[in-house]
């Protein structure tokens, strides 16, 4: 169904639950509409595609960051009312009660719809995250030039 120049590129910079919801829902909509959709995860957004297991960082600061910022899609806190980790549990309950899909279900949906998942190499280097710390569904680890190439041909370009 995809046509030429019928692409969508979304940068997921944030690792906050609510913003990631928006990103994944828009990606689902774009992919469902037959658009060739790419999600580019950078910086805090990498937490969305981290396995959530402790990372094998080398430096002291990298190790500390790995503990403080463990990641994994089920550990994302909302941008408001985080309450030191309680917030995400409250939001999860509210959303489940309303029958809204969870972040895990939405990520699986975009994977099923063949959305391309890209991880930013530079932020991975800074945070000392290796390819093995990311979920296997990530298609590639890339730099800004790949993002520009995708975005330049996209009708939808978003930074979340």
């Amino acid at each position, binding site marked *: *169904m995809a046509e030429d120049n019928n692409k969508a590129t979304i940068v997921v910079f944030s690792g906050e639950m609510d913003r990631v919801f928006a990103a994944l*829902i828009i990606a*689902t*909509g774009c*992919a*469902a*509409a*037959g658009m060739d959709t790419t999600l580019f995860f950078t910086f805090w957004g990498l937490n969305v595609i981290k396995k959530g297991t402790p990372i094998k960082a080398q430096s002291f600061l990298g190790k500390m960051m790995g503990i403080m910022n463990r990641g994994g899609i089920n550990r994302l806190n909302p941008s408001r009312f985080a309450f030191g980790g309680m917030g995400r549990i409250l939001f999860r309950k509210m959303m489940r009660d*309303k*029958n*809204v*899909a969870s972040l895990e279900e*939405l990520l699986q*949906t975009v994977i*099923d*719809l063949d959305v391309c998942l890209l991880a930013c190499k530079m932020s991975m280097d800074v945070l000392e995250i290796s390819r093995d710390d990311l979920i296997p569904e990530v298609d590639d680890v890339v730099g800004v030039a790949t993002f520009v190439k995708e975005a330049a041909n996209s009708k939808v370009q978003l930074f979340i």
Partner: protein
Amino acid sequence: MEIQVDMVQDSIGQLCPMPIAFMAKNMKKLEDGQVLEIRADDEGAHADVPAWCEQTGNEFLGEEPVEGYFRYYVRKKVR
């Protein structure tokens, strides 16, 4: 509404964006010209199903209220 339906999608209880995500998956399984019936009670579907059809070039045949939900009919475009 007298429409020959080839596949039925039960999206009752689902909220945005799941009815649309399943619609896209199910339409891939259908042959050109076949009709998908979507059963949904999400109010957003009134706007979203026709919008999805306009975006993808598939034909929106109409909607029909049933007790507690709506039936939407979409015909897969013939390429």
